[in-house]
């Protein structure tokens, strides 16, 4: 393990990241751009699953946004990996870095469960119902679907129908 880390830090890429005048700053910018794309695109999906913006259909929204989230993650992770090589040992001994990696794993696990299993439908619709109860002043019957009669049960059933729609092609494995 220790020798593997040493090999990484002694590699040409790592030296380039440490010593080239602008490689590291460029990687930092690319990392941030990737994060912006990841969180920006998935935030829109999350808001939709919470019941906002019902005029936008869930299925095409997810099919469009999630590949961009994956692209954002890939960009951020690639730039991050380049920066990691520069000081691998230092990163691995930082508790904050390990916490960050743990959170990324947890986030990936969560996303996998949401998109591969169908259990997320129940979760998402109960979230929609909960938010409709909290924001009962708003027309949540219309927010979730124009056809809903407004009752919680119907709302739940409606959002189930919307959210548990056949998984979009982009998410099938």
């Amino acid at each position, binding site marked *: 393990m220790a020798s593997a880390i040493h090999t990484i830090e002694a590699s040409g890429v790592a030296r380039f*990241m*440490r*010593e*080239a*005048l*602008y*490689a*590291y*700053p460029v990687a*930092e*910018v690319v990392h*941030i751009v990737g994060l912006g794309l990841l969180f920006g695109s998935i935030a829109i999906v999350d808001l939709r699953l919470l019941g906002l913006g019902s005029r936008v259909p869930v299925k095409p929204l997810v099919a469009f946004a999630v590949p961009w989230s994956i692209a954002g993650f890939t960009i951020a992770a690639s730039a991050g990996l380049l*920066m990691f090589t*520069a*000081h691998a040992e230092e990163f691995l001994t930082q508790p904050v870095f390990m916490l960050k990696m743990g959170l990324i794993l947890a986030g990936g696990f969560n996303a996998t469960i949401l998109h591969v299993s169908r259990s997320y439908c129940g979760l998402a619709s109960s979230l929609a119902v909960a938010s409709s109860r909290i924001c009962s002043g708003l027309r949540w019957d219309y927010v979730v679907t124009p056809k809903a009669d407004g009752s919680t049960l119907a709302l739940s059933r409606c959002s189930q129908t919307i959210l548990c729609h056949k998984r979009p092609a982009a998410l099938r494995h």
Partner: protein
Amino acid sequence: MKRYLFTALALLPALSLAHHGWSEYDQSSMLTLTGRVEEVGYEHPHGYVKLAAPGKTWLAVLAPPSRMDNRGLTKEMLKPGTTVQVVSYPNRTKPEEMRAERITVTGKTVELR
């Protein structure tokens, strides 16, 4: 669109400054030390020198090389054996480490923040 681009560009330096915090250094106790440079790292994300000051050898964390180069402190100027003066703040938890606010090398003072 143009306005968004300008805003994004204006925020870039803020990002690079925010990257490693100054909060882990005690900015209420400023040190001014003169000593001989024993070791140099002109590297990202932060340069450093090992500074042999009277009674103690410090690790002085400097700025990213891109910023130092931009401000006229080149790699060639920062060599082992050179005598430099560093104005810096000690790390709150690592007793050997300090963060340099500015450095004076052969009569030239460069701001590092």
